[in-house]
């Protein structure tokens, strides 16, 4: 399914700040995988390719994987390479971070997972989260200036 990506805001009709019930009313109440740990709650609609994490019962991260198709400005981000995604967002970021597997565009509120940060790697997971929301964890990342 095609979803429009609004970094730091929404994926299709799913918006940051929604409750589980809000999101269930969009994606459906059936076939939801759930888990909880010390760091948050997780809900997954595997057939839709959607994974949601909640903090204090409020959605703080929307993630999508195939079969979801995340479109940004009419471009399917899952069809762009790591280098192309880097170039697409670099002009609107002061610093881009990597943990060697993914890229974080913190000002935009967008993360993309590749497995390996190599120019031709294709994304397999995309995340939307509040912009500039995780400074306390930046020690886990390194700044990346080019791909």
């Amino acid at each position, binding site marked *: 399914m095609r979803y429009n990506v609004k970094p730091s805001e929404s994926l299709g009709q799913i918006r940051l700040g929604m409750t589980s019930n809000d999101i269930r009313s969009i994606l459906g109440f059936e076939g939801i*995988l*759930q*888990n909880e*740990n*010390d*760091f*948050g709650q*997780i809900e*997954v609609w*595997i057939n839709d390719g959607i*994974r949601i*994490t909640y*903090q204090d019962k409020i959605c*703080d*991260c929307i*993630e999508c994987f195939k079969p979801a198709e995340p479109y940004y400005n009419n471009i399917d981000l899952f069809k762009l390479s790591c280098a192309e995604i880097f170039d697409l967002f670099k002009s609107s970021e002061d610093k881009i971070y990597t*943990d*060697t*597997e*993914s890229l*974080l565009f913190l000002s935009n509120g967008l*993360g*993309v*997972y590749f497995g390996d940060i190599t120019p031709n790697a294709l994304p397999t*997971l*995309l*995340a939307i*989260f509040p912009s500039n*929301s*995780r400074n*306390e*964890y930046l*020690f*886990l990342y390194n700044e990346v200036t080019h791909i």
Partner: protein
Amino acid sequence: MKELETIPGHDRHEMPSNSVLQKLGFGKNFGPAVQMKLEAHLLTGSYGLGKAKDAFRAAEFALLKSGKYEDAWMMLEKDFATAIEKSGGKLEDYKQALSAARKDFFERVVPALKELKGK
């Protein structure tokens, strides 16, 4: 540890997280990994790109850096087991792979972490 080939419908779940071990100074895929069904992997705490994943990995990092290896492994194994259970899988099916990962962690990774800590 021998490189795992990915089984269709499965993901490679690193224990500890690959990025955490790299942050501690090791190369990619240094640690053990277990093949998990995708639906179970999606329910682990270290999966994803959100703040909750960062918090999980920060806890892993702190435990390993401070030498609390048993606590680190318990955290990882609990997370793994819960994800299997919540996804409708059977932990019994992963018993052998999990045991091999545990052995590798304590016999190879922990000595390397201790050596690193001593430097």
